[in-house]
């Protein structure tokens, strides 16, 4: 009994002394004020945000025909993970709960887009978490580049040394346009894009609107020169200072003859299995893909820089100062694989005035029957 009194006395006394001494500085930090908690939490949350491969997350992956990368840096997906209690960080071997107060907020700055999540950690501690979009742009390495003109008959040399250029990894999506139109008060565009699926490619905006959209993020419409640079595989990736500017036709190989599509274009005998066809449709979605759905942001289409969706699918508009009448990537679902239109650097012209046949110059790649619903996408680039 005596021992208990002494021990209790010691504890009480030390507590009291600690309390009075601690008035100048708070003794206990809350969980979210602790440096080691925030450190571990930011590393763990960053991985989930950027990789989107969290265990048990299938409940939040609902979009159709999209590559897994669609969920990377996707605030709706991240919100879904929180709502379903799928993000439970550990702190000193204990699981901590995370809940969200209200909706996330979005802020578009000239350098990046970020999202603010108002969290409640361990049911007690408020924490404002900001997640920045690190998944949208890829860097164009500093090196010599070829720029193809006149349907690849002319090669213009240029270099990006001393310049930091970034390119959108994918074509701009409906959701991006809808959010921008809401922010900019463009009611007509809001009404049009509200009806469209978020994940699909945003098409058929005016050049002025494309430019305004890119501008709003501190960017410009992608130029044909930078398109070629990010898509054409260099002869020697490891040697940026060497001016070896042979430009292979396809983004995923340095040797044309090693690709199935080259053999198709050369009318050579090709043994195309079903899996080969599926793969080729994800690289170059052409009129041969017929009943197969377009896979958005497919990893199969990745170029040497990490950009995607460079051949097939929809037409892509780009600016071209040196050859203004070559501003449209023609490789698209309107042509079969055997057409040589499916080669990097092959371009046509769009006057930007409308979407009927007389607004286009397709040269030797004229379409026998011009589609009623021709689609033109675009992407942005940044000079940092």
């Amino acid at each position, binding site marked *: 009994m005596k021992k208990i009194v002494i021990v209790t006395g010691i504890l009480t006394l030390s507590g009291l002394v600690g309390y009075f001494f601690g008035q100048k500085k708070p003794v206990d*930090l809350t969980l979210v004020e602790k440096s080691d908690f*925030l450190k571990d939490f930011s590393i763990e949350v960053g991985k989930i945000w950027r990789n989107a491969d969290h265990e048990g997350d299938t409940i939040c992956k609902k979009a159709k025909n999209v590559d897994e990368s669609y969920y990377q840096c996707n605030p709706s997906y991240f919100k879904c993970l929180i709502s379903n209690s799928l993000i439970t960080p550990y702190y000193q071997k204990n699981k901590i709960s995370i809940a969200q107060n209200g909706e996330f907020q979005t802020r578009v700055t000239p350098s990046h887009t970020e999202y*603010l999540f108002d969290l409640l950690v361990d049911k007690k501690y408020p924490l404002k*978490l900001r997640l*920045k979009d690190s998944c949208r742009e890829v*860097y164009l390495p500093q090196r010599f580049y070829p720029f193809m003109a006149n349907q690849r008959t002319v090669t213009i040399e240029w270099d990006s040394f001393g310049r930091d250029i970034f390119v959108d990894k994918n074509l701009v999506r409906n959701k991006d346009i809808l959010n921008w139109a809401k922010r900019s008060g463009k009611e007509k565009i809001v009404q049009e894009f509200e009806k469209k699926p978020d994940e699909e490619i945003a098409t058929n905006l005016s050049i002025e609107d494309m430019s305004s959209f890119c*501008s709003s993020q501190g960017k410009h419409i992608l130029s044909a020169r930078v398109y070629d640079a990010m898509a054409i595989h260099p002869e020697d990736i490891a040697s940026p200072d060497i001016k070896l500017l042979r430009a292979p036709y396809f983004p995923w190989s340095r040797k044309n003859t090693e690709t199935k599509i080259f053999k198709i274009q050369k009318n050579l005998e090709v043994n195309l299995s079903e899996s080969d066809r599926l793969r080729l449709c994800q690289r170059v979605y052409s009129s041969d893909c017929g009943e197969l759905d377009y896979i958005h942001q497919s990893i199969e289409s990745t170029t040497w820089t990490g950009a995607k969706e460079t051949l097939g699918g929809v037409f892509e508009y780009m600016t071209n100062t040196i050859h203004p009448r070559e501003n449209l990537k023609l490789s698209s679902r309107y042509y079969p694989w055997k057409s040589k239109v499916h080669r990097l650097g092959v371009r046509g012209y769009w006057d930007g005035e409308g979407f009927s046949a007389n607004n286009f110059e397709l040269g030797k790649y004229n379409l026998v029957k011009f589609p009623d619903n021709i689609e033109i996408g675009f992407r942005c680039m940044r000079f940092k």
Partner: protein
Amino acid sequence: MKLILFLVFILISCQSQIDWKSSLQKDLNAITNLELNSRYTNKGIIKTPLNTWISLLSYKENSIKRCLFYKTPFKDKLGVLKITSVRKGKCDPFAKELIYTKSLEELSINYLSGDHIENSNILELVFLMGSERKKLEIPLLNYEVPKKYKRYDNQLNSSFVDDVAFGDFFVKKTLKDGQLCHGVNSSCQDVVANNCDLCENGAVEVVDFNCPQGGSKYCGQNNCGKKNEPACPRGYKVLGSKLASLCFDGSPAGFCEPGLKTYCNKKNILVCL
């Protein structure tokens, strides 16, 4: 009774030691606008001048400037670590203060940067406390520094975790169209440091001097190559030119639309006419 008092003393001492380090970590780990004193950062043990307040770093918090000071030890007086606050102007060691500890020596302050999360953007304080050498690591969660970019990199600056930060949206000033956001002079010095990230509508580079960091940059939409607009830069190595300036009439350093030629204007910018 002596034993009880001794135990109480031990308990209090332990508590206060844990406290100042945790408090310092808390106060520094989520700060923005950090400025490290390059004279003392990564320069080893701070010994001199003796018995003097040295400003190690400063940062802003809700329009108040806070400064971390270290008073170097002198004779039997140990080193002191404190943060002072001022509304405006320079750091003042005698302003309103918050003392963390008065019992350390042989302090060195290091900023750790690298490619890997967990060992990058960390402020490290190494010090001697009693006979024990200790290390305090403070992850600078909101502190951003420019990156040297490479293939597959994203456009964000480098921070502890590039895409994660804490606290409310941080409002930065933006630059209007036409403003110079990166100025380069004829000696290839940056007369205006690159802050083109702040341009409201993006930035464009112009052709002026033959410099490894490229030409000067202005805020605005990209109309390069069009009539009366800057020429589109072709690059600096591709020409193999040793001229100090690439701005002269007919210069091949810039591209223009068909039918236009390059001319050097009065501001020493290559334009298309």
